[in-house]
């Protein structure tokens, strides 16, 4: 490619890149601008409830799905059955792309129906854990593969039984990857709406402590959707700004190590 042609192409890319940035900044600007000030005092208890629901549900979903994903990754790493491994990889790959609405349907059927949990935060958390599973498995499996090979072999060569080698040597080394994956998962759950509408429902939780899990409640993003349908766009934008701050916080924390 001629030097001039390449430079010209580059020149053309610049406005595209700039407009991408511009649009994104514009998006944030609009969102912040339209966040409501008028109804703060009335809205605060709703926000508080939704925030609590969001935090509880997110933590529960991450706590459930991380160990599951880790051990699944370990299986992928250590198994000798090549065909089973390939099959599982295909399955997880398919699962990773399933729309969250479908997960919502499934979660409602399985956890809400069969496990008789109905619409509740717990149903939502379990569904979210399943939602997170494929992507987290791939993240962790990739990290385990890249980090662990020689160390794991050294541990095995010292006579460590497999479980001990994995949990004692591989797990600490994957610590950083697990940490990052946890925050990635958390931000995904916090932003999830479709699946949670169908499982955790809408409304407010009223119980204290862990009992909340058995009640249906809206998280911040579901609450946003609700507000919009009721016409309260100001509230919705406010919730949006809150979620933006949450996402920024999670991103900052994930680089903390």
């Amino acid at each position: 490619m001629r030097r001039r042609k390449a430079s010209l192409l580059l020149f053309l890319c610049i406005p595209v890149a700039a407009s991408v940035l511009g649009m994104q900044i514009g998006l944030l600007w609009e969102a912040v601008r339209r966040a409501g000030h008028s109804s703060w005092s009335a809205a605060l208890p709703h926000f508080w409830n939704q925030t609590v629901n969001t935090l509880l549900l997110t933590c529960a979903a991450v706590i459930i799905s991380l160990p599951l994903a880790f051990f699944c990754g370990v299986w992928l790493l250590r198994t000798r059955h090549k065909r089973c491994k390939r099959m599982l990889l295909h399955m997880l790959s398919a699962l990773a792309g399933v729309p969250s609405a479908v997960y919502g349907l499934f979660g409602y059927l399985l956890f809400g129906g069969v496990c008789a949990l109905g619409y509740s935060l717990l149903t939502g958390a379990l569904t979210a854990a399943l939602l997170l599973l494929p992507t987290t498995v791939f993240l962790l499996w990739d990290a385990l593969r890249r980090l662990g090979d020689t160390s794991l072999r050294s541990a095995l060569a010292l006579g460590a039984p497999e479980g001990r080698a994995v949990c004692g040597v591989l797990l600490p080394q994957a610590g950083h990857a697990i940490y990052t994956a946890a925050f990635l998962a958390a931000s995904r759950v916090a932003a999830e709406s479709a699946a949670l509408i169908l499982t955790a429902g809408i409304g407010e939780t009223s119980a204290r402590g862990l009992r909340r899990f058995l009640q249906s409640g809206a998280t911040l993003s579901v609450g946003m959707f609700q507000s919009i349908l009721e016409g309260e766009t100001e509230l919705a934008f406010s919730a949006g700004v809150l979620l933006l701050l949450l996402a920024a916080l999670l991103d900052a924390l994930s680089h903390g190590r």
Partner: protein
Amino acid sequence: MRNLAVSYNETPVLQDVSLRIRGGCITALIGRSGCGKSTFLQCLNRLIEENGAAVSGSILFEGREILSPHLDLCALRRQVGMVFQAPSPFEMSIFDNVAYGLRLHERLTRRELRRRVEKELRRVGLLEEIGDRMSANARCLSGGQQQRLCIARALALSPRVLLLDEPTAALDPVSTVQVERLLRGLVPHVTVVIVTHNLAQAKRIAQQIVFFGRGTVLQIGDAGLLDGIGAEAALREYLEYA
């Protein structure tokens, strides 16, 4: 061992390997890349199966068959230690690295543990260099120090046999000399089997030389072999490159 055969996915890597490794001395395995030396080494502590290879034949260690499916692998690996080519310290403190094997297999008091760790570090010459930093992360050591740490880690269990897969390939000359000196000091208590590409190194430290080629053992002899005495054709060809 007798008639050892190893294959990966139906592709034979080692065939018809039969040899006897002399106890209490250093045996060097030499040969071109890819002729199965590392594979052979990993058969001796049955780490080869981690790669999905199929092993057939028989290996006798102190009169017992290693390849039997009922063997307790952990006990075997306690007796047969291994050091890999790339230094691979665990993501822990220096002390914990060396103590890892001890904590696995033995119940020691803290004082005894400390004593053993210091003894091993002294043996590899690390105690003077880093004795005051034993709780620092092992990764902050230099390459040569890391490799010596891995050797100390393997030696901590007082294995009868030590397997080394090109241990000095990634080290500078000074560290190499230190490691060689260490290995020479291990015999006759420990049987050492070392894979090496460095013929000069083999000549310096080994008492028994095994020449691999085309997936099988081509010749066995002592260090004199490397001077061309009694070397067969393939070995002579190989020596020309040295």
